[in-house]
């Protein structure tokens, strides 16, 4: 498929999303959707450096915040002009701010890359984390953009001809998501993408094959940084009040790593899957429980993902690794099983609206029981968590029975050893 065709399809899907969101007729959809879209951009941007080139960036929040604070700065530098005749609310339109945010974050990405790309692995990750801390300290102490007090950016109520301003922001973020995906996909299929993959696999061999590794890595940090800055630029308008702790929040760094990891890092579609899945899950969690439970859910999903699907959902679908082998070790099975019961326990204490969030963890339990049951010849094992899941969906579930069912599943999964000794060897 040509890039142009792909871009057209993306635009069509985006348009359909927007129309569908309008049909819902509730502005909250736009507020929640905006965040998910923002994560699509961030995850895709992270993946260009982290997934394609293999350099793990822990400083996503810094690039995001740079874009956001560029907006705050320009908002103050070109203040609201209100005269008797003209009420010109904002001197710079947001698309311009997005471009500026991209340029600034791109330049910082280039500079950071130049300073740190000679480092590998954990050292590079720590350096990017340090960059985020340095920038946050700088912003916190820069009173012009609000310092630690934060800055207000008043969002107008409406914009012509779209209507509510949030719909305009949503539309912009939709456009950015399309842009990010098109960029990521065309990189993946180009000479550049091949060079990135060579660097990820073996930098020394890449260099020996004529790949200018430093130059390519700088290109990756610049593109990745610029896209993150783009995602951050409209953020002050979305949130209305920006302070360093919200712009540099841990969520951005963690999510932009977790989403590609969970989706799969080798393809543009991985971060998309991860961002939609985790992003919407977090939105549901924010509404039904609390925003701090988000990170618990993300954390546990990462644990599941690293063990069951190290190459992401994408890798699991393509069957690059037989995920069933992980439960060959009874200890791994029991630990994973227990870990996935924890969120179910906590979610059950919340309001009934939080129940749907459990589904994902029930699914993991069912998968574990299925795989373990197959391996040890107890195929009925899968029935237990299915029964548990069914019970948990009734309004006043018999918790004791559920706990019992899960305990039986866990114990029954442990007692019998796999018949085939070869199957027990974990890869």
């Amino acid at each position, binding site marked *: 498929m040509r890039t142009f065709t792909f871009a057209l399809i993306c635009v069509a899907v985006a348009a359909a999303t927007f129309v569908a969101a309008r049909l819902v007729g509730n502005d909250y959809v736009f507020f929640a959707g905006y965040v998910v879209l923002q994560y699509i951009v961030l995850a895709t941007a992270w993946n260009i450096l982290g997934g394609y080139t293999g350099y793990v960036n822990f400083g996503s929040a810094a690039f995001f915040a740079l874009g956001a604070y560029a907006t705050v700065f320009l908002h103050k530098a070109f203040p609201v002009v209100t005269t008797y005749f003209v009420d010109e609310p904002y001197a710079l339109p947001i698309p311009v701010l997005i471009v500026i945010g991209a340029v600034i974050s791109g330049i910082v990405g280039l500079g950071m890359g130049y300073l740190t790309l000679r480092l590998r692995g954990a050292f590079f990750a720590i350096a990017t984390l340090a960059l985020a801390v340095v920038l946050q300290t700088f912003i916190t102490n820069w009173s012009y953009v609000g310092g630690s007090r934060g800055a207000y950016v008043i969002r107008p109520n409406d914009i012509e001809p779209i209507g509510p301003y949030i719909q305009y922001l949503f539309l912009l973020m939709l456009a950015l998501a399309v842009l990010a995906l098109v960029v990521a996909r065309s990189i993946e299929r180009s*000479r550049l993408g*091949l*060079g990135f*993959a*060579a660097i*990820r*696999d*073996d930098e*020394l*061999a*890449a*260099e*020996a*094959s*004529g*790949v*200018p*590794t*430093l130059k390519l890595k700088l290109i990756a940090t610049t593109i990745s940084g610029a896209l993150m800055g783009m995602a951050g630029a409209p953020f002050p308008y979305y949130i209305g009040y920006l302070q360093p702790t919200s712009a540099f929040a841990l969520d951005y760094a963690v999510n932009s790593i977790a989403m590609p990891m969970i989706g799969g890092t*080798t393809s543009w579609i991985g971060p998309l899957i991860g961002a939609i899945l985790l992003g919407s899950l977090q939105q549901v969690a924010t509404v039904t429980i609390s925003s701090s439970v988000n990170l618990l859910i993300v954390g546990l999903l990462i644990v599941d993902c690293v063990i069951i699907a190290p190459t992401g959902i994408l890798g699991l679908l393509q069957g690059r690794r037989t995920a069933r082998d992980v439960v060959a070790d009874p200890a791994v099975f029991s630990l994973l099983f227990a870990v996935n019961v924890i969120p179910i326990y906590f979610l059950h204490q919340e309001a009934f609206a939080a129940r749907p969030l459990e589904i994902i963890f029930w699914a993991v339990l069912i998968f574990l029981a299925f795989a373990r049951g197959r391996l040890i010849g107890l195929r009925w094992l899968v029935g237990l968590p299915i029964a548990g899941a069914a019970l948990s969906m009734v309004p006043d579930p018999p918790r004791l029975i559920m706990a019992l069912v899960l305990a039986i599943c866990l114990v029954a999964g442990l007692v019998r050893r796999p018949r085939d000794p070869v199957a027990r060897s974990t890869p």
Partner: protein
Amino acid sequence: MTALLEVDNVSKRFGGFVALDGINLSVKAGERLGLIGPNGSGKSTLVNCICGTLSNETGTVCFDGATMNGLTAHERTRRGLARSFQLPRPFASLSVAENLRVPLLYTVNARSGPHLSAAEIDARTAELLSLVGLANRGSQQPRDLTQVDMRKLELARALAAEPKLLIADESMAGLSNNEVADIVALLIRLNERGITIIMIEHIMRAVMSFSQRLVVLVSGKKIADGAPDTVIRDPEVERAYLGQ
């Protein structure tokens, strides 16, 4: 014949350990050179200094009439200096054919002159694969290859860069006699096409049947350089290999 590669007084130390101590080496265009030495004698370090993976502290490396000092490894590859690695280092997430596309796109197409089109790259990839005997493995992943095939891939990837000088760093370790003979024959065929080759090897049978000239490194010093038959009878070489 003029010298294609001129290594002049190259030294390299790692902390207090002198890995290379004032090495001089001259390789003529079209030559087949064998480079031997006991483990830890600095053979691979010399290759790394020639190819730009490591930078030498003293001395110069001249290749094709230009000094290589300060050039990065990929710049040297683009000038026609290719190497294979001692332990195969394939690009694990790419298919075998894609492994060859990397040097084709980044070295051959980065040189001045007409660029290969997509079709030409595919043709070249197929040609290289059949040259090393991996003709029907193009779509496989490197991890599915045997050790021999992995070494063949390593050679093919170095060859894809269309080198003037190929440095084959122990490309035969661990192979059976027949496989060694295969690779020696392949290297000689390549040499007949005009590629200068430096072979680093422990398998003496391969070295002796391949080399026109033999260089011996011991503890970072060059102790012998000459016709293979004379060199292996050199008492100093015997002492280095067998002890006294």
